[in-house]
């Protein structure tokens, strides 16, 4: 019995290690988010902190003066939760609370617009010159413009909006 205990511990440890490796593999395979804007928008690049300020509604106008309209997926959808967690570093509930606070402060007239699908998100951004949204890399459409984040595109190493199937940014692992 005493001899069997180290073997059992070793078995459990190896199982945990395997599970960890598998999770990391899933993390790499998950498609990253791409930030999209209207083709008429002159902005090509944002820093991650600028992107965060936009999604937190701290910045509400583009450098050329157009009002920024943040577009998110509808409440409860995994893509919304993931995007809020990766970009703003908040849970969906905390984000809602933040938006509510900003609205009561009077510093926000209209909060983020909620859209039901990725295709609709692309169509929305295509039609609204001041809109900023996000889709997964495999949902990208040439009718909208992809923004570089910190000068990086989704295929580049170190792209900050890479996500895992668990909904965490790569840096969290």
């Amino acid at each position, binding site marked *: 019995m005493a001899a069997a205990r180290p073997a059992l511990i070793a078995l459990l440890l190896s199982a945990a290690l395997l599970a960890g490796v598998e999770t990391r593999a899933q993390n790499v395979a998950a498609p990253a988010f791409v930030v999209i804007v209207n083709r008429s928008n002159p902005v090509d690049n944002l820093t991650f902190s600028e992107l965060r300020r936009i999604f937190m509604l701290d910045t509400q106008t583009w450098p050329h003066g157009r009002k920024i309209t943040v577009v998110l997926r509808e409440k409860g959808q995994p893509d919304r939760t993931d995007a809020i967690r990766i970009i703003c570093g908040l849970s969906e509930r905390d984000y809602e609370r933040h938006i509510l606070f900003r609205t009561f402060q009077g510093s926000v007239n209209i909060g983020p*617009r909620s859209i039901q699908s990725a295709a609709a998100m692309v169509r929305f951004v295509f039609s609204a010159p001041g809109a900023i949204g996000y889709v997964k890399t495999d949902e990208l459409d040439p009718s909208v413009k992809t923004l570089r984040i910190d000068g990086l595109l989704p295929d580049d190493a170190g792209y900050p909006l890479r996500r895992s199937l668990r909904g965490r940014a790569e840096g969290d692992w």
Partner: protein
Amino acid sequence: MRRIQSITRSATFALLAAATLTVLALGWVVARDLRRSADAAGQLYERFGEGLDIIDDILFETGEVRRILLYALHTTDANRQLDYVDQSRSAEGRVRQLLDSRSPILSTARTRAARESVAAAWTDYLQTRDEVVGLILEGSLTEAVSLDERIGAARFNRVRSAKRAGCARTDGGQAGPRADGRHPGEPGRLREQACSRRRQAPPGRMKVSPRSPSRATRCRSSRTR
């Protein structure tokens, strides 16, 4: 004497036969010409009818583009607004197809100029429409209404005026007052015929769409898709 009589009778018969043949030949020629004229008139009427149908469809679809857009002003739900915008854009696509259609009646020098003026006015209106769409989706409904009132309505009216001028030209109207004393904006005989034909249609059908039911159904189904 008898021989002379017989020759005279034969000559008379021959003359009568020749006259009959001539009359028959002339009758055949006249009948053929009449049939050709009827065919040509029928073809002309069909071409006019086709031209009027296209103008009618353009009138309907341009109205749809604007009407559907106004619906988007009455909701704050982004998904519904986007649906309305998509419907407006698909109606816009149908207008573009109609304006690009190569109907013979719309390809004469006079009607081509009218069509180009409608297309130019329509392009101007679409610029404003796109700006209004952007403002609606960004949640700036008041600004959208203001822009539409200030510029959109005027540009849409310009499209309608251009279409009205185009209709007058399709009816064979001149730029100035016509020989029959009517002005180009007044309905011509062909349009009166077309209108009277439409008046005979059941009123319910006319309220939905003045076009053929199959076409109206097709448009409706494409809108609901």
